[in-house]
C-alpha cells in the first residue's frame, strides 16, 4: 500500500507541476487542461530526462530523475511567471482540477485493487516489458542499452517505459512494483485524458447550461474507452452456462463456442462441455483472451483487454499521450485567428506541440502519423473558416512545417538507434473482415459515433450535407483506387477481389460509407463553426483507420503468416480511442435529446445504449475470471515478483542479489533459453530451441543488467530479419550455451571473456535447460559470488596488483 501511495503522490506531484504548462497550452478547454496535465507533465519530464541523460548532464539513478522533476518545476515556474492570467485560470479551474485529481485517484486505486490480485510479471510479453522498464532505469548511459543484446542500444519505442521508470524512481518504489503501478497510472491518466477532451467537446456544444450532460458525455467516454469490451463476451457467458443456439452463434460469427461434434476442429469448442463454468461467470482459463482474437489472423485488442492482461506495452502506455495530442488539436481547432508561420513569433507553443507530437513516435511509433494527421486537419479546418481552402492549406503547412521539423530534431538521439520493422505498404489481398465480427468487435463504439450524424440534419438542411458529401467523396474512393493500383502492380487484383469474400466487401462498404458520412458531417459543421464537428472528425478518422486496415497492410516480420496482424491490431486500437471519444458525444447528446425534447433521433440512442451495456458484459465476466473471483489464497500485493519469492525463494534471492551487488550495465551469462539434453551418444544436443515467451533472459529482464542474448525472435522484430542479424543472434546463443555445456574450464572462461561477462548465473532456468551433468563444475574454476538453495552466481576469479602509494 505504501508503494501505491508513493506512486500516486508522485503522479499527482508531476501533474500539479504541469498545471501552468497545461493552462498555457490548453486554456480553451473548460478544465484548462487539468485532466491532461498528468500526461503533459510526465511527457515533459520524460523528455527532459532523456535529453539530459543523453547529454550526460543528469546522472543515472534516482537522483537523476529527481533533478529532472526539479527541471520540470523550473519550467513550470518560468511559464507561471509570465502568465498574467494564471490566478484567474486557477480560480476558474479549481473545481476541474479537483475533479481531475479525484477521477485520477479513483481509477488509480481501482486498478491497483484489481492488479493486487494478479500482479505477477510473467507470461505473454510481460518479461519483455519488464526488461525495457529495467533497461531505462538501470542503463549506465543513454540512450538505454538493450538488456537482451549486451553491447547494443535499445531499438524500440521505449518512451513509455522511460516515463513509468520516472514515476517509479520519483516514488522510490521497486521496479517490480513500478511495473504494475505504471499500468494503474496509465489507466487513471487515460480516464482523465478522455474525460477532459470529451467534457470540453460537450461543453462547447451545449454551452454552460449543458454542464450536467457534458459530465454525462465525459463519463460515457471513460466507459467506452476503458470498460466496454467485445460483444463476444455475451455469447461466451451464455455458452458457459450451456445456452447456445448454433444458428444464432454462426450468424454472429462465434462458431468457436458451439461444441464440437465428431471431433474437435478449428472452429468449434473442444474444451470441457459440461459444465463449462463453476460459477456465475465463465471460469474457463482465460476465456477472455478469445475476445481479442475475434477477426482471424489479427489481434483485435481494446483498452480493457490490455489492462486486464497487464502487458505494459507501448500502445497501452501511449493512451494518455494520445488524448493529450487530441486535446491540443481540439484546442488549436477551437481558436479563432488563422495559424501560419508568423504564429511562431512566440515559439513556446510550437515547441511544446513539437515535443508532444514528437513523443507520439517515441512512445508508440504507430501513433505519430494518425494523430499528426488529426492535428493537421484541425489546423487546416481552423484556417479554412475565414479564407479559401488553398490559402488555408498553405498557412497550415507553414505553421505545421516547423512544428514537425522540431518534433523530429528533438528526438534525433532516439531515431538514430531506432530500426523500424515496417518495410512498406502493401495491399491486403486476404479474406476480409466478416461483418458479424466487425459488429462484435466495434459495434458499440462505431454505432455510438454514427449517432452524431444526426447533428448534420438539425436546422441546416440536407442540401448542405449533400454538398459536403460530394466534397468528401474522394475520401473513401482514393484508398480504394490506391488498393486497386497496388494490387494491379503486384498482379493480385483478381486474388484480392475474390479472397475478400462477400462478407469482407460488405464490411468494407460499411466502413467506407460511415467514414464518408462522418467526414462530410465534419466538413459541413466545421464550416458552420459548430463545435460538434470535432467529435465527428474524430469519428471519421477512426472509421478511416478501420477502412484502411481492410485495404492495406504495413509489411513487417509477420508478413508471411499473418500479414495484417499488426496493421489491424495497431490501427483498430487507435480507432477504438477515437471512436470512444466520438461515440461518447454521439450517445450522450442523443440521450439528452431524448430526455429533453423526446427527439425521434434520440430513439436510436436506446439500442446503441443497449449495445454498450452488452459491451460491459466483457469486463463483468472477465474481471472475476482473471482474479479467480478475487479470492486467491495468496496475499494481495502489487509486487510483480512476489510470485517468484513464493515459488522459488532461491531464484528470487539470486535475482535480488544481482540487482543489489552488480554494477548497472554488467554483462551476465544466463541461459539462452534453448533446452539441451544428451543424445544416444552422450553428446549434448538441443531438443527445444524456442526461447521467446519463455523465461529466457529473465535475470536481465528483472534487473536491468545485460545478457548476450534474450528473446531471439523479438530481437529480429526490433532489428530486422536480415541474415546478418540471424547469424549474430545465433552466434550469441551458441556462445552462451557453450558456457553451460563445455567441459573445458578454459573454454568457459574464453566464452565469458568474449561476452565481456564477469558473472555466470545458475538458477532455475539453467538447471532446467541444462539438466543432469550437462553443466561443468563451475565452482572448480569460478568463484561462488552468491548461493541460496542451490542457485548460484559465479564470478570470474580476479587477481590484480594494486599500488597504494
Amino acid at each position, binding site marked *: 500500500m505504501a508503494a501505491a501511495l508513493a506512486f500516486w503522490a508522485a503522479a499527482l506531484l508531476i501533474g500539479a507541476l504541469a498545471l501552468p504548462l497545461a493552462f498555457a497550452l490548453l486554456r480553451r478547454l473548460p478544465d484548462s487542461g487539468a485532466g491532461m496535465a498528468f500526461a503533459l507533465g510526465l511527457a515533459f519530464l520524460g523528455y527532459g530526462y532523456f535529453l539530459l541523460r543523453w547529454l*550526460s548532464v543528469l546522472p543515472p539513478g534516482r537522483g537523476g530523475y529527481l533533478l529532472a522533476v526539479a527541471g520540470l518545476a523550473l519550467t513550470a515556474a518560468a511559464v507561471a511567471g509570465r502568465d498574467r492570467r494564471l490566478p484567474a485560470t486557477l480560480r476558474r479551474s479549481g473545481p476541474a482540477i479537483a475533479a481531475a485529481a479525484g477521477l485520477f485517484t479513483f481509477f488509480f486505486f481501482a486498478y491497483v485493487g484489481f492488479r493486487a490480485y494478479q500482479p505477477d510479471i510473467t507470461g505473454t510479453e510481460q518479461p519483455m516489458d519488464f526488461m525495457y522498464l529495467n533497461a531505462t532505469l538501470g542503463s549506465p548511459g543513454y540512450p538505454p542499452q538493450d538488456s537482451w543484446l549486451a553491447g547494443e542500444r535499445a531499438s524500440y519505442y521505449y518512451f513509455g517505459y522511460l516515463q513509468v521508470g520516472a514515476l517509479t524512481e520519483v516514488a522510490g518504489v521497486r521496479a517490480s512494483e513500478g511495473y504494475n503501478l505504471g499500468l494503474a497510472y496509465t489507466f487513471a491518466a487515460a480516464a482523465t485524458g478522455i474525460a477532459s477532451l470529451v467534457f470540453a467537446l460537450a461543453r462547447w456544444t451545449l454551452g454552460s447550461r449543458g454542464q450536467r450532460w457534458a459530465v454525462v458525455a465525459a463519463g460515457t467516454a471513460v466507459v467506452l474507452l476503458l470498460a466496454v469490451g467485445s460483444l463476444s463476451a455475451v455469447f461466451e457467458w451464455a455458452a458457459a452456462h450451456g445456452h447456445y443456439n448454433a444458428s444464432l452463434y454462426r450468424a454472429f460469427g462465434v462458431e468457436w463456442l458451439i461444441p464440437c461434434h465428431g471431433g474437435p476442429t478449428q472452429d468449434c469448442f473442444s474444451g470441457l462441455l459440461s459444465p463449462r463454468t463453476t460459477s456465475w461467470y465463465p471460469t474457463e482459463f482465460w476465456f477472455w483472451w478469445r475476445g481479442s482474437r475475434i477477426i482471424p489472423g489479427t489481434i483485435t485488442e481494446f483498452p480493457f483487454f490490455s489492462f486486464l492482461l497487464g502487458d505494459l506495452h507501448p500502445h497501452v502506455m501511449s493512451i494518455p499521450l494520445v488524448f493529450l495530442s487530441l486535446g491540443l488539436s481540439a484546442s488549436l481547432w477551437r481558436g479563432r485567428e488563422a495559424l501560419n508561420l508568423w504564429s511562431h513569433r512566440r515559439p513556446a507553443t510550437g515547441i511544446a506541440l513539437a515535443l508532444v507530437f514528437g513523443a507520439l513516435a517515441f512512445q508508440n511509433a504507430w501513433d505519430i502519423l494518425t494523430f499528426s494527421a488529426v492535428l493537421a486537419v484541425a489546423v487546416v479546418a481552423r484556417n479554412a473558416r475565414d479564407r479559401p481552402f488553398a490559402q488555408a492549406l498553405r498557412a497550415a503547412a507553414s505553421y505545421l512545417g516547423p512544428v514537425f521539423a522540431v518534433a523530429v530534431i528533438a528526438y534525433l538521439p532516439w531515431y538514430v538507434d531506432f530500426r523500424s520493422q515496417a518495410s512498406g505498404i502493401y495491399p491486403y489481398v486476404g479474406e476480409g473482415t466478416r461483418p458479424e465480427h466487425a459488429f462484435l468487435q466495434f459495434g458499440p463504439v462505431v454505432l455510438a459515433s454514427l449517432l452524431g450524424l444526426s447533428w448534420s440534419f438539425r436546422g441546416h438542411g440536407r442540401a448542405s450535407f449533400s454538398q459536403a458529401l460530394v466534397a468528401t467523396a474522394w475520401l473513401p474512393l482514393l484508398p480504394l483506387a490506391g488498393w486497386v493500383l497496388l494490387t494491379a502492380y503486384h498482379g493480385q487484383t483478381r486474388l484480392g477481389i475474390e479472397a475478400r469474400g462477400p462478407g469482407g466487401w460488405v464490411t468494407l462498404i460499411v466502413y467506407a460509407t460511415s467514414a464518408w458520412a462522418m467526414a462530410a458531417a465534419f466538413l459541413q459543421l466545421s464550416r458552420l463553426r459548430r463545435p460538434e464537428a470535432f467529435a465527428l472528425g474524430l469519428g471519421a478518422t477512426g472509421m478511416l483507420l478501420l477502412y484502411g486496415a481492410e485495404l492495406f497492410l504495413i509489411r513487417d516480420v509477420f508478413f508471411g503468416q499473418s500479414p495484417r496482424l499488426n496493421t489491424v491490431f495497431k490501427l483498430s486500437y487507435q480507432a477504438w480511442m477515437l471512436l470512444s471519444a466520438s461515440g461518447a458525444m454521439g450517445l450522450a447528446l442523443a440521450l439528452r435529446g431524448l430526455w429533453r425534447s423526446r427527439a425521434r433521433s434520440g430513439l436510436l440512442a436506446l439500442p446503441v445504449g443497449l449495445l454498450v451495456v452488452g459491451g460491459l458484459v466483457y469486463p463483468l465476466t472477465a474481471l472475476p475470471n482473471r482474479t479467480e473471483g478475487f479470492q486467491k489464497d495468496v496475499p494481495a500485493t502489487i509486487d510483480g515478483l512476489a510470485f517468484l519469492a513464493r515459488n522459488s525463494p532461491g531464484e528470487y534471492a539470486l535475482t535480488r542479489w544481482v540487482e543489489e551487488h552488480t554494477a548497472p550495465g554488467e554483462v551476465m551469462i544466463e541461459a539462452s533459453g534453448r533446452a539441451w539434453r544428451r543424445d544416444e551418444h552422450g553428446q549434448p544436443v538441443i531438443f527445444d530451441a524456442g526461447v521467446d515467451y519463455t523465461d529466457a533472459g529473465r535475470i536481465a529482464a528483472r534487473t536491468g543488467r545485460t545478457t548476450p542474448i534474450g528473446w531471439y525472435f523479438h530481437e529480429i522484430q526490433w532489428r530486422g530479419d536480415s541474415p546478418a542479424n540471424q547469424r549474430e543472434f545465433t552466434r550469441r546463443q551458441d556462445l552462451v550455451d557453450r558456457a553451460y555445456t563445455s567441459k573445458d574450464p578454459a573454454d568457459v572462461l574464453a566464452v565469458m571473456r568474449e561476452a565481456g561477462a564477469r558473472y555466470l548465473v545458475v538458477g532455475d532456468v539453467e538447471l532446467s535447460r541444462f539438466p543432469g551433468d550437462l553443466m561443468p563444475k563451475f565452482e572448480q574454476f569460478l568463484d561462488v559470488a552468491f548461493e541460496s538453495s542451490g542457485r548460484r552466481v559465479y564470478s570470474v576469479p*580476479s587477481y590484480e596488483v594494486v599500488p*597504494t602509494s
Partner: protein
Amino acid sequence: MSDVAPGQEAAANSPSVTVSISAIAWTAVGIAFVLLRLGPIWQAPVGGAELIHLSGAWQARIGLPDDRFAPTLFQALSALVLHGTTSEVGPRLFAFLATATIPAALYLLRPRLGNAGALLALVLLALDPPAISLGVSASALGFDLAIAIWLCVLVDRAAWSWWAWFLGGFLVATAGPLPLPLVFALVAARLLTAAPPRYPLLALGGAGVSLGVLATSLRFGLGWDGLRVVPFDLFARGFDQPWASGTGVELIASYGLPTILAGSLAAVWQLRSAGHRWPVEARSLDLALWIGAAAAWLWASSQSHNPVPLAALTTPLALLVGPLLARALNAMVRADWTYARLLLPIAGFAATLSLAVAVDWARNERVGDGGQKFVFAATAVVAVSALVILLSSRTSRPTLLAAGLVVAAAPALAGTFGVALSASHEPIPSPLSTAQARELRDIALETVRDRGGLVVVHPSLRDDLTWAFRDSGTIVVSSRIPADAGFVVWPLNLPRPEGFVALEGRWVLKQEVEPPTGGGLQYLRWLIDRHSVQINPSLVAVYVKAKE
C-alpha cells in the same frame, strides 16, 4: 527572509552599550562556532561520505582512476594536500577554514535577518550536529555549507561586482549538492516573479558555471571524464552510497527534531503572515522555496543513508527561525509573567520528576511497575496542565517559549556535543574506518618485511581498505590466495586457506554506529548515555603464512 524590525535596526545603529553587548555576543558565538568544529578535525574518525571521498582523493593522488573521486573543488584540493600528508587532518583543515567564514557571512546578512536574527541563526548553525560534521569533514562536500551561506550573501547584495557572480557560478558548479536547493529556489523565485537579475550578471554567473563544469569534466587536470556536473552526480550518489549508518528518518529523529519542529512552527507563522501580502517579491520567496526544496530532498531521502539533506534543510531553517526567535524572545521578555513565575517552575519540577522516572526506565530498558507508571503519568499531567494554563492566557502565552527552549536544548546540545567531542560513538559520521584497520596495515607491512610474501586482500574488502592501507607499497587484490601470499585479509565466512594460520584477534576494518531505533526509551537512553548505541563491526579474518 524576514524584514528588519525598525526598533532593532535603530538599536543596531545606536552607539550605546547595546552595541557592545552585540559585539560581545557575535564574538562569543563566533568563537563557539569555531571551537565546536576544532575537536572533530583531529578526533573524529574517518567515516560516512568522508571515508568514500578520502579514498577517492587518495586514489587520485596516486594516479589511479576511481569512481569514488568526485571532482569537486574540495576533492581536488584534498588530492593535492594528500601529496604532502597521509593524514585526513590536512583536507579537514581546508574544510574548517571555509566553514569558519560562516559567522562573517551571517554578520553580513544582518540587514536581511536583523542583528539579533542573524546572531540567533548563527547560534542554531553553530549547534547543528550535521552542520558540524559536514563542515569539517574531508568529504567532497567540504565547502558546501560555506558556499550555500555565501551565496545568500551574494544574492542579498546583488550589486556586488561582476567577479562575485562569476565566482559564485564557478563555486556552485564545483561544489557538492548541498547548495542545490538554494540555487533551485533562487532561480524558481525569479522565474515565478518574472524578475531576473540583469543579463550581464546572469551571463557572468553562467560563465562561472560553464568554467566549473569544464573543470570538473577535466577532473581538475586529472583527465577528461566526459561531461560531469558534479553537484548532480553527488546528489544522485547520496541516494545509493552509505554516507551514514542511519536512514534519513532515523537521522532526523537523532539530530534534526528540535530544528525541524521549530522550523515548521516558524514556517507556519511566516506563511500566515505572507498570506496577506500576495503576490510576494522574489527575495521573499527565496527562503520559502529553499526550505521547500530542501524538505523535498529530505523527504525523498528518507530511506537513504545520507545526512546531507538534513544539513541542507537545517541551514535555511536556521535562517528562518533565527529572526523569528529574536522576535519571540522579545515577546517573551515583555510578556505577563504573573502566572508564569509560578506555573513554569511547577511544570519544570513535575517534568523533571516525570523525566527521572523515564530515565530510570530507559536505563533498565523496560517500563516500570504500576506505581512508577502512576508517578510518571501524574507528574506529566501536572506539567502539561501547567503549560496549558499558560497557553490559555493570551498575555502569558509567550512565556511558554522558555519551556520550549529548555525542552529543545536537551536533545540539541546532546547531539551537538556528541558530534563535536565524541564522534566515534555517533551515527554521523558512520560507517567508520577503525583505527584497527590502520594498525592492521602496519602489522601487514611488518609481517611481509620480516617473512616475505605479498599482502593479499579479497576483492570484497578492497574499497574498505583503500584509505586504511594507503601508502603501503603494492598489495594484491585477489579472489583466490596466490602461492606467494604472506599476509591475507579475508572475509570471515570463507574457509581458512591451507598453509596459513589465523592471526589471533578480533579484526574490525569498519564499523557502523546504529542510531537508536528501538523506540522512545532507547532514544532517551541514548540522550543521556551516548555510548549506549549499538555498534556493528565488519569483522574479517587475517591469515599469515605458516612457518615451514
